[in-house]
C-alpha cells in the first residue's frame, strides 16, 4: 500500500514536467441517458435473480494546471429480480482514497412500472478518515423487478497503472471500458482470462482513445481448489510511453527495480546504527553468516510486531528498533541491513498474491509489486519479512509459483547498482509439507469404545504455525489448539492424554516437525447391528476434502501448496471377532506426469493374526493443474473422501 502511494508521487513528477507543450483538454462531464424509462426484458437473463445490464468504467486523463489528473467515471445498471439481489446492490460506497474531488454522483431506481426515483443529493453521507474515507448512499425508491442505476465521477491523481474487472458472480450484459489521454501519453492494455482485446479508436492527433466492450459476460462462481479472483476477467493497463520525454518505454521493470532499490536497500546513518544494534542484541557476530541471520530473524519475529496500518514512520529501522513494530517496507529494510551485516548476498523480490493476480513477467505493470521477499542465492532460500510465523526457507504459500521481480545489487566499480529480472518463485514439494498420522486402535471390553493412540506429525506450514502459536497463546488456548488436532479425527474424542513430543522452537530448527501424541477414547467410530460391530475405519483419518458436487468446472485447479499425508493404522481386532471385508480397505487413485506421480491416494493393508495394518500414502505435488484435466485431479481428491466411508464388519466367530 505504501508502495502504491509512492507510485503516485512518481508519476506526478514525471508527467507534470511536460504539460507546457501539451494542449489542455477540457473535462467532459459524463452523461447518462436522461429519459431511460423503458424497461427492456432481457430474455434468458430474466430467470437470474441479479444481472448487470451495463457496467462501465471510463478514464479521462488530463493535465490540470500542471498536475496529471484523471476523471474516472464508474457507471452500473442492475436488474434486481429478488429481495436479496436488491439488498446486495442498494448500498453504494465510493472510496475517496486518491480522490481529489468527487465531481458527480447520480443514482436512480426505475420500478417495473416505470416510476423513476432520483437520489436526493442531501442523503449522501461521508465517512471521514485521516487517510481515505468514503462517501456512501442508499438507492431510493428501489423495487424488486426494477432497475438500480448509478454513476459517479471522481477526479483522481492520474494513475500510471490500473486494473479493471469486467466479470463478477452475476452475469453482465454489456461491460465497457474506455481511456482517453493527451496525445503524448500512450497506454498499454492486457485483457486477462478473455480472448478480446482493447482497441485504439482515435482518429485525431489531439488525443489517444482506447476502447473495450464485452457482451454477455457469464457469472463466475467460487470453486474449491481454485484462484477465484485471479480467474475473473479483467484488464490490466499501464502508461508505457510519453513522447514528450523521449521514445523510450517508461515504467519498466528496470525502473521499478531502481526505485525499490533506493527505497529499500539504502540506509542513512541512523538506520544503519539501528541494524547493527539489533544484530548485536541477538549476540551474533558479523561472521556468523546464515546462522546469524536465522538467529536475528527468530529474535525479530518473536519480539517485534508487524503493523499493517502504521504510517510511514514504520518504514524506518530506527523506528522499528525503538517501537518494536513497523511496516512491511520497514522490516524488509531491516532484513536487508542484517543480510549485509552478516556478509551475505541477496536479491530483493517483489510479487503478489497469486490468488488475486498472476504476475505476468511480460507486462511491466507495477500493480503486481505488492509484497516483499528476500532471496538468498547462495543457499537457494527465501525469507518472508512480514510472515511472522515462518522462518527462512518458508514463505507464504500465496506467493509460490508466482513470478516476481528480482532485484540484485551488483557492484560496478564503487557503486552498487540494481539489476532487475523476472523469475518464478519455486513451489516446495509435498515432502516439505506433511501431516502424518500413526494410529493404534484397540477396543474396550464391551466393544463400547475404541481406544486410540495417535501420533500426529506436521512439517512445513502447519508445523511452523503451531510453533508460533505455542509461543504466544495462553495455556487454556494452547490446550484447545492441541485438542483440535485430535478432535479433527473424532469429534466425540474423550482425551485421556495429550502431549507435544516434538517441537524444537529454536532459530536453527524452526523447520523441523511439530508432533503431538495422544490417547483418547471414541464411540463414534462404532455402529452396532445386533451382535455385529461395524467399525467406521475410514473416519480414523478425519474428514477429507471432497469434490462430489463439482460437475461443471470453470477454472483450472489451483492448490494452496503441495502436501503429503502418510498414515499407518494398526487395529487390534478383539478376540472372538473376525473382519469380514478387509479388502474394502484397498483403494488406489493416481495422476502421473511422465513417470512422476503428482497426485496420489494409495491405501493398502496386511493382516497378521488379529492385527490389521493399514498404510495410506496420499500426496499432491503440483500446485497448478489444467482445467482440461480437472477430472483426474478430482478423482484423487474424492478417493480420500471415499476412503472416509470404508466400514469394517466385525463378526463374532
Amino acid at each position, binding site marked *: 500500500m505504501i508502495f502504491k502511494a509512492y507510485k503516485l508521487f512518481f508519476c506526478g513528477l514525471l508527467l507534470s514536467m511536460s504539460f507546457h507543450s501539451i494542449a489542455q483538454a477540457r473535462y467532459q462531464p459524463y452523461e447518462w441517458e436522461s429519459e431511460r424509462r423503458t424497461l427492456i426484458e432481457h430474455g434468458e437473463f430474466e430467470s437470474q435473480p441479479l444481472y448487470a445490464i451495463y457496467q462501465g468504467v471510463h478514464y479521462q486523463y488530463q493535465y490540470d494546471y500542471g498536475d496529471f489528473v484523471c476523471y474516472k467515471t464508474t457507471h452500473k445498471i442492475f436488474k434486481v429480480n429478488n429481495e436479496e439481489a436488491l439488498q446486495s446492490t442498494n448500498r453504494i460506497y465510493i472510496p475517496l482514497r486518491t480522490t481529489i474531488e468527487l465531481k458527480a454522483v447520480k443514482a436512480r431506481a426505475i420500478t417495473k412500472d416505470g416510476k423513476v426515483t432520483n437520489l436526493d443529493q442531501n442523503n449522501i453521507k461521508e465517512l471521514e478518515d485521516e487517510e481515505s474515507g468514503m462517501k*456512501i448512499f442508499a438507492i*431510493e425508491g428501489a423495487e424488486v423487478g426494477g432497475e438500480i442505476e448509478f454513476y459517479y465521477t471522481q477526479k483522481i491523481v492520474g494513475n500510471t497503472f490500473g486494473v479493471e474487472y469486467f466479470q463478477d458472480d452475476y452475469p453482465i450484459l454489456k461491460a465497457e471500458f474506455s481511456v482517453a489521454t493527451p496525445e503524448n501519453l500512450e497506454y498499454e492494455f492486457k485483457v486477462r482470462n478473455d480472448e478480446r482485446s482493447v482497441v485504439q479508436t482515435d482518429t485525431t492527433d489531439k488525443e489517444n482513445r482506447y476502447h473495450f466492450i464485452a457482451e454477455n459476460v457469464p457469472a463466475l462462481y467460487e470453486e474449491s481448489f481454485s484462484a477465484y479472483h485471479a480467474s475473473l476477467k479483467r484488464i490490466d493497463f499501464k502508461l508505457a510511453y510519453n513522447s514528450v520525454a523521449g521514445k523510450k518505454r517508461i515504467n519498466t521493470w528496470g525502473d521499478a527495480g531502481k526505485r525499490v532499490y533506493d527505497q529499500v536497500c539504502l540506509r542513512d546513518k541512523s538506520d544503519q546504527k539501528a541494524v547493527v544494534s539489533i544484530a548485536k542484541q541477538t549476540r551474533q557476530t558479523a561472521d556468523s553468516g546464515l546462522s546469524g541471520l536465522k538467529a536475528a530473524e527468530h529474535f525479530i519475529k518473536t519480539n517485534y510486531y508487524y*503493523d499493517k*496500518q502504521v504510517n510511514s514512520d514504520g518504514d524506518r529501522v530506527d523506528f522499528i528498533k525503538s517501537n518494536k513494530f513497523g511496516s512491511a517496507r520497514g522490516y524488509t529494510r531491516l532484513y536487508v541491513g542484517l543480510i549485509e551485516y552478516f556478509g551475505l548476498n541477496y536479491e530483493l523480490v517483489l510479487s503478489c498474491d497469486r490468488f488475486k493476480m498472476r504476475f505476468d513477467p511480460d507486462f511491466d505493470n507495477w500493480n503486481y509489486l505488492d509484497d516483499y521477499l528476500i532471496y538468498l542465492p547462495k543457499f537457494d532460500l527465501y525469507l518472508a519479512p512480514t510472515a511472522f510465523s515462518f522462518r527462512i526457507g518458508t514463505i507464504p504459500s500465496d506467493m509460490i509459483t508466482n513470478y516476481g521481480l528480482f532485484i540484485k545489487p551488483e557492484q560496478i566499480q564503487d557503486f552498487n547498482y540494481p539489476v532487475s529480472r523476472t523469475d518464478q518463485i519455486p513451489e516446495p514439494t509435498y515432502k516439505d509439507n506433511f501431516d502424518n498420522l500413526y494410529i493404534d486402535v484397540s477396543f474396550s471390553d464391551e466393544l463400547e469404545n475404541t481406544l486410540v493412540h495417535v501420533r500426529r506429525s506436521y512439517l512445513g506450514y502447519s508445523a511452523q504455525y503451531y510453533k508460533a502459536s505455542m509461543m504466544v497463546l495462553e495455556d487454556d488456548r494452547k490446550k484447545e489448539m492441541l485438542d483440535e488436532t485430535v478432535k479433527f479425527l473424532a469429534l466425540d474424542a474423550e482425551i485421556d492424554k495429550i502431549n507435544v513430543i516434538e517441537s524444537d522452537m529454536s532459530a536453527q530448527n524452526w523447520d523441523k516437525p511439530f508432533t503431538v501424541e495422544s490417547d483418547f477414547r471414541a464411540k463414534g467410530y462404532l455402529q452396532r447391528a445386533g451382535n*455385529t460391530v461395524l467399525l467406521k475405519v475410514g473416519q480414523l483419518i478425519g474428514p477429507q476434502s471432497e469434490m462430489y458436487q463439482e460437475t461443471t468446472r470453470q477454472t483450472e485447479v489451483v492448490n494452496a501448496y503441495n502436501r503429503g499425508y502418510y498414515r499407518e493404522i494398526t487395529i487390534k481386532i478383539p478376540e472372538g471377532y473376525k473382519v469380514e471385508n478387509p479388502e474394502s480397505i484397498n483403494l488406489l487413485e493416481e495422476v502421473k506426469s511422465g513417470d512422476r506421480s503428482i497426485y496420489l491416494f494409495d491405501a493398502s493393508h496386511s493382516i497378521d493374526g488379529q492385527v490389521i495394518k493399514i498404510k495410506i500414502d496420499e500426496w499432491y505435488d503440483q500446485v497448478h493443474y489444467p482445467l482440461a484435466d480437472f477430472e483426474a485431479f478430482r478423482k484423487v481428491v474424492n478417493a480420500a473422501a471415499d476412503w472416509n466411508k470404508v466400514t469394517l464388519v466385525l463378526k463374532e466367530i
Partner: protein
Amino acid sequence: MNKGVFLGFLWLAGLATYAQKPDEVLLSYTSKYPLNNAVQLVKSEVIDLSIQGDSLVANSDVYEEIIYLSDNPSGYSRERIYSSGFTRVDNIEAYSLIPGKRKYDQLKVENMKDSYEMESFVFYDDGREITFNYPSLVKGSKSTLKYKRHYLDTRIINMFFFQSYLPIERAEYKIVYDPQIEVAAEIFNDPKGLVEVKRATTKDGRKEISCVVHNAPKIKLDHNSPSYQSIVPTAHFRVNSYQVKGKNNKVLSDVGDLHGWYSTFIAGLNQPDTTITQLVEKLVNDKDTDLDKLKSIYYWVQENIRYIAFEDGMRGFIPHAGGYVLEKRYGDCKDMSSILVDLLRAAGLSAYHTWIGTRDIPYGYRDTPTPIVDNHMIATCSIDDKWYFLDATGSYTPLGLPTSMIQGKECLVSKGESYELVSVPVIPASENVMRDSVSFRIENGKVTGSGEVKLTGYAKVFNNYRLIKSSKKEVDDYVHRLLGKGSNKFLVDNYKLTGTKDLDVPTFISYDFNIKDYYNEVGDKIYVNLILDQSILDDLIENREVPIENEYLYTNESISVLQIPDGSTLEYLPDDEGEETEFFTYSIKYAQDGNNVIATKTFTVNYLTLGVDQFDEWNKVIKKYSKACRNALVLNKTNN
C-alpha cells in the same frame, strides 16, 4: 477512622508499589497470574455530574493500566478507543512503561489515528475509533491510558463492565455529583456479589457513589455466547432528578419519564399524508376484517421497504415520517415502525410506536428505565385484545410471529400520553419444525430415493434467508447442504422449492436423491443405518465457561422408509429409544410395514439459553442420543 489518616495511608501504599523495582513487580504478578499473558491492573471511570445553569453536565475521566507478563507481548500493542455522537472523547494520553533496573522508562504514544467505525450491520454510523500502538512492549512492561469522555446527554451514560478479556485487579466505576441531584446506582449480573457499592460525601459537600470489584477473572467468550452485558457484572448510574432554584426536575426516575422523553421523538410524526392514504386505500379496499387489513399492510412494508440502519446522533432516536420512508423505500427500524404506524392508523387500526431491547440486553424497563434497556423499535397493533408485534426489519417473518431476537422481551408501547409494558411471547418448538421424510431403495451399493422437507415457523423464516439468494448457484448449494444426510456423498438429483414467497404456508422442498457407498453388503448380509440425519450427534460441550444461546426453540423430524430389496428379509431391527429432558428430547422408533421398514426420529432443542451448570446434563443426553443413532438394521439375502 479519621479520613485524613485514611487517605494518607492509601498514598503511602501507592508509594510503596512504586518503590518496588520493575522486576519485583513482574515477579509478584507472574506468581499471582501464572497462566495469563497480561493483567489489567486498573480499569476505572470517574464521572463528574454537576448542575450548570439550569442543566446537567456529565464528563468523566477514564483510566486503564495493564501489565504484560508474557515473553512477547508485542501482539497486545494495538489499542482502540471508541466514541460516538453521544460520548465524545478527548485529552487522550497513552504511555508504555518499559522496565529498567530501578524504575520504568516512560514512552509516550505519539501517533493516533482517528477513523470512522464500520460495522457490517449499520450502514452509516457516527461512531469513531481512535487507534494506536503502545511502543516497545517487552515482558514486564506496563501501558497506561487516560482520556476524558463528555456525555452529551446525562440520560445516556455508559454502562461499566467489571470483567474483560484480561483479568482485572481493580475495576472502579464512580460518580461524584452535586447534592441537588439524585442518582441511582444499578448493578446487574452480579450473583456472587462481587461489586462493592459505597456512598460518601466529599469535603466540599458533594456526593459520591463508587462501585468496585477486586480481582475479577478474565471472561472467555465462545461461539453462540450470550452478549457481553448478559454475562459480566455491570454497573450503571441513572440520574433520577435534580433541583434548580427550588424546582424539582425529573430526569429518568421511572418508566413514565423515559416514555415522556421518547414521546418527543415521535411527536412530529403522523401528519396527514396523501401518499400514505392512497397506498392504504389500495392495500385494504378489498379486505373485510381488521386482521386482513393488518396482514396486507404489514406484508407490504416487509416486502417493499428495505432495512438499512443509520446511527447518526439524535437521528439514532428520531424516526422519519411514514411518507418520507414510503418515498425512499428504505429505512432503519424506527422508520419501519413509523411507516407501519402511519399506514395502520390510516386504515383505522390501533397501532403504536413501540420500543424494545433485543435479547442481547438482559435488563427490562422495570429494572432500569433508561435507554440502556432498548436498542430497537417496532410497531404494535392490538386487535380483539391480541397483541401483534410488527418488526418489519425481519424479512420473511409471518404475521403473528415476532422476530426471534425479541422473543420473551418486554416492550414499551406508546399510547400518546400514556404507555403500556407488554411481553413478547417465546415461540414454542412445536411451531418451528423441519420435517424431512424420505423413501428409498438400496441397490448396487447405492441408496436412491425421494423426499420432502417441510419448514414452518422460524425454521421457515431462517431457511428463507438462505433460499432466496442473488445467484441460483448459492441456492443450489444451500439446498444441498440443507437436505444433506447419510454422508457427504449425498447428491440431490433434482429439487422443487415451493412456498418461500407465501409467508402463511410452509416452505416445501421435494427432491430426488442418491447416496453412494452408504450401506455395507458383506456375504449374505446387508447392514443399513436408517438414521440418515446424524446432526448434533457430536455437539458435546467442553472447555466452555459461558452459557450458550439458541436463536429459537425447534423440533426436527426425520422419517426414513426403506424398501426391502426383493429376495431379502429383515433379520434384525434395532430397539426403539428415547429420552426427555428439560432442554433436549429425542425419540427413535422403528417399524416394519409389509415390504417397508420405517424409522421415525424426532428431536427437540428446547432452550434459548443453556446455562453453564446444565452442560453436564446436556452432554449426558447427547451421548445417549448419539449412541441411539448408531444402530444399523440387518437384511438377509435369503434367496441368494
